[in-house]
């Protein structure tokens, strides 16, 4: 409903949006500022929107209490592998389901779609037993294999298939007449055109892996192997109470890099998501 708005209406809308923004923006602000408050100021009344005293030692304490650099690396490389693996597997499968005629393709697509109805929460008990049998408990293999092959990659395949179906077929047909094989057509022609869909798949998959929590706490047991979400909950004192400022410093270090990448690339980010074929 894009009509020109009266100045009064504009002011009202800006006001409304600013109020609505508070719960979206304030937590991040509160995390940043509280992470540099000394513990004595952390529950000060009235609340300090800007720290009255700064204590940057919280950030050093994060690395003393946990092997935080190692945990950071764990989360980062797992998310990178999962994102890359999912992009390869789902773009190939999505392309085949959209473009190549082969017997039982529709039936197989239905079987694959079943994966969407079976989130890993449903299968976590047998997955635990399987990885136990394979000697993969307290390794990162479950966190890599299950997302690449499970429900999240099915969603990615669905997104890729929707994209390839909508892509004009002429370019590929010209290449076929020239005698190019299927794989070359896919790799040289279709895939470069699929960048927006691949971008959306990459974002979804990265965030999924980055946020995994149930799987790490089921499969991992030593702090060296922990991923970030799991590590963030470990900053407690001898009595089990949260060491808030240190925990928030760790949370800040976890959240800010991804947030910065998003702000730099937000246009591609948001437009990629809007083109996931979910428009119906």
């Amino acid at each position, binding site marked *: *409903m894009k009509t020109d708005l009266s100045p009064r209406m504009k002011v009202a*809308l800006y006001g409304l*949006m600013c109020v*609505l923004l508070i719960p979206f923006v304030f*937590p*991040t602000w*509160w*995390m940043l500022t509280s992470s540099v408050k000394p513990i004595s100021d952390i*529950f000060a009344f*009235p*609340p300090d929107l800007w720290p009255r005293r700064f204590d940057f030692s919280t950030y050093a304490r994060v690395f003393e209490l946990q092997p935080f650099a190692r945990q950071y690396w764990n989360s980062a490389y797992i998310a990178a592998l999962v994102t890359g693996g999912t992009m390869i*597997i789902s773009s*190939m*499968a999505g*392309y*085949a389901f959209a473009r*190549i*005629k082969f017997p039982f393709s529709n039936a*197989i697509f239905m*079987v*694959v779609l*079943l*994966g969407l109805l079976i*989130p890993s929460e*449903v299968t*976590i*008990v047998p*997955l635990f*037993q*399987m990885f136990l049998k394979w000697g993969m408990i307290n390794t990162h293999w479950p966190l890599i294999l299950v997302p*690449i*092959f*499970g*429900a999240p*990659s099915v969603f990615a*395949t669905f997104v890729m298939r929707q994209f390839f179906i909508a892509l004009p077929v002429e370019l590929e047909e010209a290449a076929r007449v020239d005698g190019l094989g*299927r794989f070359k057509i*896919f790799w040289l022609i279709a895939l470069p055109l699929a960048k927006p869909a691949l971008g959306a798949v990459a974002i979804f998959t990265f*965030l999924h892996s980055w946020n995994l929590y*149930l799987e790490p*706490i*089921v499969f991992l047991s030593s702090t060296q192997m922990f991923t*970030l*979400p799991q590590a*963030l*909950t470990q900053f407690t004192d001898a009595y089990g109470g949260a060491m808030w400022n240190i*925990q*928030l410093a760790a*949370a800040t270090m976890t*959240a800010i890099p*991804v947030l910065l990448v*998003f*702000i730099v690339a*937000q246009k591609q980010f948001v437009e990629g*998501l*809007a*083109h996931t074929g*979910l*428009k*119906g």
Partner: protein
Amino acid sequence: MTIAADTPRRKRPFWTIERRDAAAGYAFIAPQLIGIVTFVLFPLGLVFYYSLHEWNVLANTFNYVGAANYQMLLADKALPQVLLSSAVFSAGLVVLNMSLALLLAVLLDQKLKGITLFRTLFFSPVVVSLVAWTIVWSFLLQNNGGINGLLQLIGVEGPNWLRTPTTAMISVIVVQVFKNVGLNMILFLAALQGVPRELYEAARVDGAGRFKQFRRITLPLISPTILLTSIITIVGSLQVFAQIAVLTQGGPGMTTTVLVYYLYQQAFQFHFFGYGSTLSILLFVIVALLTFVQWQMRKRIVFYEN
């Protein structure tokens, strides 16, 4: 596809285009299909098999018990509360998420300067690490935390949010809504921008007001998006775990113990793998039923242009 017909006398080569295509097709989908069978369908079969067994890891027992776990499910005194918590959480989350997402999308669809900045800010929690976001809210919602501090400034005594049954549930829902509403907001915004402008002009000529235009034109045209996002949101709401584990650990009492959290407790804290598997089957049936019902509703309420 006419090569074979053109050369009827020569020996037909084995690798016809059809066969080459079929081979390529199977090769392309093989990793996905093998993965789904190994890491999704086979485990689903196993979970059903386990659910027919009494299995305590600590006592090292694994005995076939038939439907006993399912009878236990029906007799489980905690289960009604767990299902109620799950239902309240999912219903609250879906209603709040969808209506807020739609409101924000309509606001962002207006001709206003600097609207992209607002879009970025509303979306930003989506990219903040889930557990980091939940920890900040946990900090804010402590009895002496930021929210009660701000409330006290205006003379209101806030409740102990995470330790009071009703406010604990509300907190868990609201924290999750603000985290993820940006996703649905963007999908709705894309759908709104796909509505042809001429329709609004025609409606205006016919004297339809803003509200009527929204109800009669916008809503029907974006209904496919509403349906798909509602399915994704509901299925996602049934998987909620980290937020509960960090904010309330299922408490106070069992008021925020949703099904996945209960399943986790039974299987991995109390080591009842058989009963945990039975709860997994229950979760699967609920997800499948909800998806099926919503997919059926598509025929009745969703409006398609063609």
